[in-house]
Every structure is written in structure tokens, then in C-alpha cells.
């Protein structure tokens, strides 16, 4: 199993771990564990993700809000979902980026203090095939991305899709899309 782990650039005593699963057969079970906080991680829909950078940005933003006590949501892990979204509605953010009960693939994101990660244990609960986080692009659903981030075809004439996604996330607090 590949764990893609990176230091946070907000505070380097925190670490962000990503694991990608395909052919998952127990997503509703995993999802329930996350809801009940039996596992401390965010479960994302890989179709709504363009690359790991997008997720790392959202995770760092969430950590900054967590440490600065300026969170919009109730937990660090839900704040990641909020930060990913171009929408300021928490419900909508969850609907768009959170995994569904019948999901076939899951991107797991955990933020933890260094040496306190429980990503191995979390992953041991998942029945599915771990795949390289690098391969996230093969799950990306571009029409869905365009719709979630309200990206117009004309914008893509001079900017690339990933860059537009990053900047939509960055400005969501004060720009309406």
C-alpha cells in the first residue's frame, strides 16, 4: 500500500497522508466509521479531484483555520472538504466532495501530528485495492470538475484546468461563483 505523506507548509509538525483505493466493497461501512469518528480522516470522491496538489492545498488551508481557530466547520477533517469546495455551503461541499455509500473508489486524507498518524489502521478497515496516489488523474471526471467549480470552456482557452481549480478554492471565501 502506498501512503503519500507530506509535511504541512502551515505547520511542519503536522503531516498530511493520502491513500487511494479502488474497487472498494465496504464504502458505506467506512463512511459510517468516519461519521461516528471511529476513524479520524476525510473520505473524498476521487472523481472530484484533479491532482494531489489540490488536496494538499485544501488540507493546509483547513489546518490553518484549525490552528487559527477560524474554522467554518466542526472538525479539521470536515474543514478539508469545505476548503476543497468552491461553494460556501457546507452541505453542498459534502455532497460534492464526500464519498457516497455506494462509492467504488475513495481517497483517504488524514492530517495528524507527526508520529501520531493512524493511517495504517484506517486503511486496514478498507476492503479494496490500494492504488498509487499519482494515478488520481485516471479517476478525475472533467465534466464534473467543470461543473463543481463553475469553469467555463472559454477560461480554458488561456488557463489550464488545474490552475483554475486551485484559484477557485483559494478565493471561495470572498468571491461568488
Amino acid at each position, binding site marked *: 500500500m502506498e*501512503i503519500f*505523506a*507530506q*509535511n*504541512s*507548509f*502551515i505547520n*511542519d509538525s503536522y*503531516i498530511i497522508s493520502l491513500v487511494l483505493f479502488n474497487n472498494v466493497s465496504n464504502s458505506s461501512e467506512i463512511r459510517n466509521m468516519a461519521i461516528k469518528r471511529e476513524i479520524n480522516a476525510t473520505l473524498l470522491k476521487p472523481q472530484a479531484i484533479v491532482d*494531489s*496538489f489540490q488536496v*494538499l*492545498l485544501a488540507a*493546509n*488551508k483547513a489546518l*490553518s*483555520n484549525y*490552528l*487559527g481557530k*477560524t474554522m467554518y466547520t466542526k472538525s479539521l477533517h470536515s474543514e478539508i472538504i469545505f476548503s476543497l469546495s468552491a461553494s460556501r455551503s457546507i452541505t453542498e461541499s459534502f455532497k460534492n466532495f464526500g464519498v457516497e455509500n455506494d462509492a467504488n473508489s475513495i481517497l483517504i486524507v488524514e492530517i495528524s501530528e*507527526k508520529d501520531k*498518524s493512524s493511517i495504517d489502521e484506517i486503511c486496514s478497515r478498507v476492503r479494496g485495492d490500494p492504488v498509487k496516489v499519482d494515478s488520481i488523474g485516471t479517476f478525475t471526471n472533467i465534466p464534473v470538475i467543470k461543473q463543481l467549480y463553475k469553469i467555463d470552456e472559454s*477560461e480554458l*482557452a*488561456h*488557463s489550464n484546468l488545474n*490552475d*483554475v481549480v*486551485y*484559484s477557485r*478554492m*483559494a*478565493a471561495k*471565501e*470572498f*468571491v461568488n461563483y
Partner: protein
Amino acid sequence: MSESHVQEEGFLFQGAEARVYKKTLYGKQIIIKERFSKKYRHPVLDSHLTDQRLKSEVRAILKCSSCGIKTPVIYMVDFNSSKIYMEYIAESITIRDYIENFLKDGGNINELASLGRQMGKLIGSLHANGIIHGDLTTSNILIKSKESGCDLIPIDFGLSSLGRLPEDQGVDLYVLERAMLSTHLNSEKLFEELLDEYRLSFQGGLEALNKLSEVRMRGRKRTMVG
């Protein structure tokens, strides 16, 4: 288990209200622009003003990019530390440095007419798209050469606003004129080229230029009195 892709912060620039660092973030070269507080301002008012500057900077940059004007990609805005994380424009220098290098190498400023015209076109398209830069100087436009010619990339939008008032456009040009004439010796003709192209490329250009004349007069009166 974790790789450190977050390298040491490289200091680039310290202005009156912002500090600029270059850094590598998860493999991407980025710029961090951090606004710091003004000690003499009231803390609550100060943090409000800082947030406003961060927001107007990002708003204008995003507006540019949606209108096809190349600007740095915005990666993150962190209000907790007053930082904007953005794309590092590699292999670029400021127009200010470009002109200075050109003169140092024995060039004559009047040979830079085409640069002046390209600047005029850029400012025309900012104004045509309802963007007032607010702090136009030759340090706030980057130049990056490409296979044919070069790209001009406006930066430093902290004082920008959105709108199409000819008065604001005129003031924008006036700020640039003052900055250029005081920074670059004998840049009068270069600035004229700039205005020529500005007028040609931007529909509302003439009105803005009329406002520029008015603003110049006011400026002159003010200096005569003061």
C-alpha cells in the same frame, strides 16, 4: 515516512507593507506574499485593512485571468497569517530592471518604443475589463520573453479596484506617469508611445486620457500651492 518538499524560505523582497518569499511547495515554485501590520494603526482596523488588501489583490488577479490577461495563479489565501500563495513567474524580471539593464548595456531608452506600446496595450485591456490596478509602476509589471516577443504580467494588485470610471482610469495612468518619469530618466517619449497604444487599443481610451490631462493639471496646481 514523509518527504520534505517544503524547502527553506528564500527571501526576495521587502516592501513597505509586504514581504515576498520564494519557496518550493510540493514541487512547484511559488511566491508567498505576506502583508504585515502597520504598528501605528489600530489593531482591529489594521487586520480589517489587511484582509481587504488581500481580497482586492486576489479578486483583481482572478478577474485578469478570467479575461485572458496572464497573472500569477493563486494557490491559497491564508487570512490567519495574511499570506497569499501564488505561482512564481519563472525567468521573468520587472520592467524596471529590464529598462535599467537595457540602458546599462548601452541602449537608448527611445529604442524601447515597442515595450511602451505593449505596456499601453496591457493597461488598455485591464481598463477595458473593468480593472483599475491602483499602483502601476514599472516594478509592478513582470516581463518574460518567449519564442516570439515577450509576455507582460501585471502583479501587486493590493490597491486595485474593479470599475470603469474614466476618472479612475486617468488616475491609474497618472500614477504610472509619475512613477515612470521619476524612475527612468528621459522616459517621456516612452510614456507617449504607451499612451498612443492605450488609446488605440481601448475604446474608452480617449475619455481616460482627457481625465489624465485634468488630473495632471490638478497635480500641478497642488504642487504649486503646496
